[in-house]
């Protein structure tokens, strides 16, 4: 696998349907109403229900392991949230290798929706084939 510094990861686009927002919120055991009740979300000043942060961490992880494969070991995930990702948006992840240290690689990841950057961060992963 080519994973030198500068390597771009294959893009991942996810349709953020209301079902996606709700099912991921429940699967991460986050029952805040803004993630499943549109009326409540609107009453709290949001445009619609929106993706929760535990799901963002999970999606960033999936984006990296989709590329690095099931033998890769995720060491850390640091994310920062930007604009909200509401239902009916499309979230597109892009990433590139920004650092290598032996088998470890640092991947900068950005998830962009219609409003701009929703999530950005760095994942440290130990790639297969190297010293674990």
């Amino acid at each position, binding site marked *: 696998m080519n994973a030198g510094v500068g390597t771009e990861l294959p893009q991942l686009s*996810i349709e953020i349907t209301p079902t*996606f927002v709700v*099912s*991921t919120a*429940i*699967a*991460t*055991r*986050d*029952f805040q109403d803004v993630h499943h009740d549109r009326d409540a979300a609107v009453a*709290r*000043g949001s*445009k619609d229900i929106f993706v*929760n*942060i*535990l*799901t*963002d*961490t*999970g*999606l*960033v*992880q*999936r984006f990296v*392991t*989709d590329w690095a494969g*099931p*033998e890769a*070991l*995720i*060491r*850390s*995930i*640091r*994310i*920062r*949230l*930007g*604009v909200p990702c509401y239902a009916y948006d499309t979230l597109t992840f892009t990433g590139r290798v920004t650092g290598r240290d032996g088998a470890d690689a640092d991947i900068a990841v950005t998830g962009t929706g*219609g*409003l*701009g*950057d929703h999530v950005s961060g760095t994942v440290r992963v130990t790639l*297969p084939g190297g010293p*674990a």
Partner: protein
Amino acid sequence: MRGIEEAAKHIAAQGESRARLARDPVNQAMVNNWVEALGDGNPAYTDPEFARGSVHGGLVAPPAMAQVWTMNGLHGTRADDDPLGAMMSVLDEAGYTSVVATDSEQTYHRYLRHGEHVAASTRLEGVVGPKRTALGEGWFVTTRTTWSVAGEPVAEMMFRVLKFRPAGEPAPAPDPAAVLRPVISRDTEFFWAGTRVGELRIQRWGGGTLRHPPGPVAPNGDLAAKPDHVVANGTGTVYSYVVHHHPKVPGKRPPFVVALVELDEGVRMLGELLDAGPEDVYIGLPVEVSFVRVDDELTLPAWKVRS
């Protein structure tokens, strides 16, 4: 404000909360729900045969689920020594009633296996504020959580939320259809992304030289240089200003004041001065940034008189 800071100090001094056990041990059913919802096809989580032959030597849970195991759940309540809960109560009482997560940094010491029962303990790391943000004035609350299995730390997390006071009587939002929308280029995109999240961003070159308005080439002409940005403190003084009367400007009600402000960082920036009439504005007037949300895509920087 002093009260909030003192309460934060007090809560932080109590250190880590008692370890709180997850409702369920790590189990395949919850993992299945999670990978289905997120669309994660990694066989290390679901295919026993593959997992046995892999680097993991058996089925593992997605590391990003660490926090999931110890969530309070639908009818769960916070532990009485939970420092995040305590800090939220203090801020609720001070009128900062809304909350939004901003940062998460998770470190995984190892992957979790089915049957392991994790426990979480949390301490308050810091409370910073009050800060002006696009959402309203608020405080950033940072906690650190450690997950352990039988006393062995398996994962850690720094978690930051913004606890904010929703802008009470905000200036009437300008009609999005009327506002003259900015043309945004690759070189200026970061500025507008910043205003959307309540940050006044100034382009920075070579780690030091600030430039506004931003552009694609370093002021010293170095084509190899790449810019980043600093987030302005948001304070400055009026360098010059206009009181606009005629003709009509879309989205504005005359007379209104537009001020060229010299920011503390040394660059000048234009914006409407929202809360000063023609008689109150003068060159040298101290101001601070304010963010006028037009719609999801556009937030304009503006100024308010610094008190």
